[in-house]
Each structure stands twice: as structure tokens, then as C-alpha cells.
């Protein structure tokens, strides 16, 4: 007697049985529902991608070398270390908190690594491990301050901003600058190592195959479970676009040096973070705590542990980013990780589309945001514009990004998309 009313056994897939649901079939339907989402204020990555295109065209019209293979390679390479720091900021913002000290932490971690490797002649691995663990330790202390004592994140990270800048100066002592040895593996990794063409195309093929394969697998499981499978035509189109887009980029960057190891590491971290946020229980809980902490707590989520892991991860990313930056710049100095690094990392996350109010954003916002900022910096440098203008332009872009976020938030709430 249960079979007739069992929702999963009916012929219509369970998730489309409600007649009020507007259903979009085929590719046309996918386009239509995408358009409806945009009008409803769910802009996703669109403003950033659009902005990036505008920025590219403007700089290209002023200075044709902007879109040269060589310049694009250098943009990707310089974007990577701060992008790694920005990835940590995305996590903190997802909880609706802020970490103003990532720059100082990155500088302090890099300086500790450099002192160990150069002055104390430890191996590079030991130096890097200690540097990264310093980041983790700092984040853990932040988390304790937040969860046990209730210090607002704005305050303890502002304190950290000052304190770890001091720690950087202290560790460097009267040396001022420590130059990493020329044969240092870190320097080589961050500056001179690039994927060969074969490696790049193989990696590309693997990425696209995994994407399409996982979608096809999900489609089979969904059909077996009596739910509508994802639109395979759309998946195919996305797969082809992904293949074509990344393929073209790989070809174009390959004219010069190609994809740097540094950027590939950053991109891998972004993809990994995205998967962890979307597909694991921990990621789900991060979004839940950022959306409604009280609801998360009542659902039995250990809210304190989420805060702990996020603050620790953010500072760890900061330390890693600082070490990579040191490798790229070949040295650590008293100005490592000062205001510029800090604000660029935070601005990148926000420009990329992570909301300042918590619960909304993706790992990809770190990638997109840092590309925008790096493109602006690079373009203005090419045009020999003074750094004073660069700061003003960056400020304006940040303001624009937050304004777009606020407007789309309002549209979302009036069209019922939260």
C-alpha cells in the first residue's frame, strides 16, 4: 500500500513534481533560468569577469603589451602569493569575521623562515614548516581570543597587525633584509619553474575529463535516485567552453613561459578549497555558522571548532603566501607584508564576490579578485603611472565591488533569493 504514495517511485522525478515549479528543459531552458537568476540579483562571478574584460580592453588600448603573452604570465605569477593569502580571507569572511593581520603574519612567517634557512643554516623544508606552523599557531591564538574571551575579530587582528609587524622587525634584527640564496629551491619554485607544454595540456585534459566525468556520474546516481539529472547538454557545453578557454590560455601563455608552478599551486589550492567548502560537512558548517550562528549551534554544530579551524586556516594561508612571496621577491625585508599586501589580500576577496556579511562567497572569489587587482597594478605600472594613482584606482574598484554586492543583495532580498 505504500508504493502508490511513495514519492520516489512515481514516474515524475520527485524534485519536479510540484506544478508551481517553473521548469526549464534543454539548453534554451538553461539560458532562460540563468537570465532569471541574474535578474533576481544572483550575479555570481559575472561582474568580476566583466570588470576583468573591461580592464583588459582599457589597458590594451593604452599599452598593447598589456595583453602580450609575457605580461600575462607575469600577472599570473605575481597574483599567486597574495592570492593564497586572500584564500584565507575568504574563509574568515564566510563567517562574517575579518582578519586585518594577514599581511603582518605573512611577513613574520617569511622572516622566521628566512632567518632559520639563511642565518641558522637549517634546511629549507624545516624553515618553511616552521614558518607555516607559526601561522597556524597565531590563528589558533586568535580563535581562542574569539571563542573563549569574546574579543571581536576586528580588534585582535588589528592588534596582530601591529604586533607581528613588530615581530618581523625583531626577527630580522639589525639586518634589515635577508636575501635567499640563489640556489634556494623556494626561489626556483616561485620564479623559474614552469609547466612544459605537454604537462600543461595533459593537466588541462585531466581537469576537463574529471569535471565532465563527475557530472556524468552524478547524473547516473540522480536518475537512479528518481531525481532529475543535470542537463547533460549544458554540461557538455560547459566542458567544451572549459576546454577551449583553458586550452587557448595554455597555448597563449605557452608562447612565453607558460603556467608557473607558483600559479598552478595557487589554482590547485583554490579548487581544493572550493571542493572542501561545497562538498564536505566542514564546509557546509562554515556556511551555516556564517549564515545563522544560533541556528548552527542548535543543530548541534560545534561552532567553536568551526571558528577555530577557520582562523587557524586563514593565518596558515597567510604564512604560506608570505613564504611564497619571499621566494618570488628573493628576499625578506622590513617592509615584507606591510599595508599593501594586507589590504590587497582583503580587497581581492571582496572584489571577487565574497560578502562581508558572512555566509556568501566561494573560493573562486580569491582567484578572480586577485586577478583584477593584479591586472590593474600591472597595467598602471606599464603606463608608468605613479603608485599614488594606483592606490586611488584600487580604492575605487573596491568601492565599486562592494556597491555592486550591496545592490545585488537588495535585489536578491526583494526577489526572494536571500
Amino acid at each position, binding site marked *: 500500500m505504500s508504493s502508490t504514495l511513495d514519492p520516489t517511485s512515481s514516474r515524475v522525478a520527485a524534485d519536479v513534481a510540484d506544478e508551481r515549479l517553473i521548469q526549464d528543459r534543454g539548453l534554451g531552458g538553461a539560458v532562460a533560468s540563468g537570465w532569471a537568476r541574474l535578474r533576481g540579483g544572483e550575479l555570481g562571478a559575472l561582474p568580476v569577469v566583466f570588470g576583468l574584460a573591461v580592464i583588459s580592453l582599457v589597458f590594451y588600448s593604452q599599452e598593447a603589451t598589456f595583453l602580450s603573452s609575457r605580461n600575462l604570465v607575469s600577472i599570473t605569477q605575481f597574483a599567486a602569493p597574495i592570492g593564497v593569502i586572500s584564500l584565507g580571507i575568504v574563509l574568515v569572511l564566510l563567517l562574517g569575521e575579518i582578519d586585518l593581520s594577514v599581511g603582518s603574519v605573512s611577513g613574520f612567517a617569511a622572516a622566521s623562515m628566512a632567518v632559520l634557512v639563511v642565518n641558522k643554516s637549517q634546511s629549507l623544508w624545516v624553515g618553511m614548516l616552521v614558518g607555516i606552523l607559526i601561522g597556524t599557531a597565531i590563528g589558533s591564538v586568535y580563535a581562542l581570543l574569539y571563542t573563549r574571551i569574546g574579543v571581536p575579530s576586528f580588534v585582535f587582528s588589528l592588534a596582530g597587525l601591529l604586533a607581528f609587524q613588530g615581530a618581523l622587525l625583531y626577527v630580522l634584527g639589525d639586518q634589515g633584509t635577508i636575501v635567499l640564496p640563489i640556489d634556494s629551491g623556494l626561489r626556483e619554485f616561485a620564479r623559474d619553474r614552469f609547466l612544459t607544454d605537454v604537462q600543461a595540456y595533459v593537466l588541462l585534459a585531466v581537469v576537463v575529463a574529471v569535471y565532465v566525468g563527475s557530472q556524468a556520474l552524478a547524473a547516473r546516481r540522480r536518475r537512479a535516485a528518481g*531525481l532529475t539529472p543535470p542537463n547533460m547538454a549544458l554540461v557538455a557545453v560547459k566542458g567544451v567552453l572549459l576546454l577551449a578557454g583553458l586550452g587557448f590560455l595554455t597555448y597563449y601563455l605557452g608562447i612565453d613561459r607558460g603556467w608557473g608552478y607558483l600559479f598552478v599551486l595557487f589554482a590547485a589550492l583554490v579548487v581544493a578549497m572550493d571542493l572542501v567548502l561545497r562538498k564536505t560537512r566542514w564546509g557546509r558548517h562554515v*556556511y551555516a555558522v556564517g549564515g545563522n550562528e544560533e*541556528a548552527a549551534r542548535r543543530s548541534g554544530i560545534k561552532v567553536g571548532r568551526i571558528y577555530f579551524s577557520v582562523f587557524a586556516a586563514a593565518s596558515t594561508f597567510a604564512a604560506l603566501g608570505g613564504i611564497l612571496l619571499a621566494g618570488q621577491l628573493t628576499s625578506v625585508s622590513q617592509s615584507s607584508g606591510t599595508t599593501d599586501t594586507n589590504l590587497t589580500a582583503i580587497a581581492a576577496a571582496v572584489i571577487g564576490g565574497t560578502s562581508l556579511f558572512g*555566509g556568501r562567497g566561494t573560493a573562486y572569489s580569491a582567484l578572480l579578485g586577485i586577478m583584477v587587482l593584479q591586472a590593474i597594478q600591472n597595467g598602471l605600472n606599464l603606463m608608468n603611472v605613479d603608485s599614488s594613482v594606483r592606490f586611488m584606482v584600487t580604492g575605487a574598484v573596491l568601492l565599486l565591488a562592494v556597491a555592486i554586492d550591496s545592490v545585488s543583495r537588495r535585489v536578491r532580498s526583494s526577489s526572494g533569493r*536571500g
Partner: protein
Amino acid sequence: MSAMTQRVGSGPAQGEVVLSLAGVHKRFGAVQALTDVHLEVAAGEVVALVGDNGAGKSTLVKVISGVYSPDAGDIVFGGRMITVGGPAAAQALGIATVFQDLALCDNLDVVANLFLGQELRRGPVLDEIEMEKEAWRLLRTLSAKIPSVRIPIASLSGGQRQTVAIARALVGDPRVVLLDEPTAALGVAQTAEVLNLIERLRETGLGVILVSHNMADVQAVADRIVVLRLGRNAAEFRTEDATTEQLVAAITGASDNVVAARADRHRQADPTHPEAEL
């Protein structure tokens, strides 16, 4: 009959008492919030808990849901004496609570909210497909009107949110559901929807404890009405025997009013009258 009925059917038989409290005392400093309170709920029964502000309803709900532990008193659940260690322990025992403010995450979709804190996994990865399937099953057994389980909670109406909150209470396969003011912020149509939902819970053999201020709602769905006043059991009615006047009198404790005087006369004349139970 739906799958849920079968599942619950393997539990207590219809009409068997699943949860009973006796002699519950709870004191906060100088305030005696609950004094010798008793309450019973059977499988497939809706018991309404009514009372004025400060009558002890919320305290009693929190005692049952494990937020407070009582100073004295016995809680018998499914024939066994239990102590509820906390909200999670209550949930694990099979006592689910839907709090007044629902506690949903606006930024997450319906599936994510239904399974929040008890997500299904395949290895380390969330099993979205199984959760979505189970979500539809739960919503269908409640005959719930939710257009899609993949839209954020923010885009649902008040009644639909209440539906999601109630459906979430059912994820852990409970035997008793506590609903704290489920219709407080809802319009007429949405209230009716939630009342339907409560009846559906009863049909599936769950014990339902409904806390409400709204006499009309209570009289519409409850089988029995328990009145608390100043932390004590003030009265208990079978719904079909109780008039609104009698309820109001019991809630306000206006024992010298006209309604009470009439009840007194009835009590002397007819010992089977509901008020004679007191």
C-alpha cells in the same frame, strides 16, 4: 500509507503513552517556575500546552527538550525512566523540538537546512543525492508545499519555513515532537497549512506537544488541552468538552468569575463534566 507511517508503526502502538512527566519541579533562584507539574502524551495524540505569560510553558518545553534539567521529577519516555542530558541527547532519544524562532540558515537551501548537523555522507563527501531524495520523502509525507528543495530558505514564505523546520524535526526519526508557538507569526492561510501539518504528524503516530497562545488553533487540532498557571497544572480538558470560556478561566485563574461559578454548579450536578476531573 506512506513510508513514514510504516517506520513509526514499528514503534509504540497507537494510543500508548510515549512520554510522561510527573512531579516536575524547577526553580530559578527565588522563582519557583514549575511546581509538581505532570504531563502525558500518547502516540498519535496532540496535547496542547496553554497558559498565560509566565505560566511555565517555555520552562516545561525546555525541560522536555533537554535545555534545562528539572530539580525534581520523573520523565518516562517509551516506558523507561530517562534523564535528558541536553538538546542533542533529547534529539537522540527521539524527542524533537521546533523552537519558536525556527533556527534556519537563510543562506542555505532546504536540503542543507533539513540535514544541518546530521548530514549524510559517502566517505568524506556529502551525499547530496541521498539527502535530496530523503528531503522529498519527508516533505511528501507531510504533504508539504515546497516548490523546490534547492532554493535558499530566504525565498520561502513563513508557512513554508515552518514546514521546513517541522520536517527537520522529523529527520532523526523522533517519537515525540514539541512545537513552540508554531503559528505565532503566520497569516490565516499559512496557519491552516501548519495545522494540517500537525494533524499529519498525529496521523503518522507521533506524540505532539503543541505550545500556543491561540485558543482557536489549539481547539482546532488538539486532542487534549493542558493548562498551566503560575507553574502548576491548572486544568486539563478533552478538546471537544472545553469551551473557550472555560479555557480562558483556567488560564487566567479567575476562579470567582461567572464562567467558573457555572462550572462549579455543573460539577456538583454532573460529576462526568470535564472540569470535574480536577
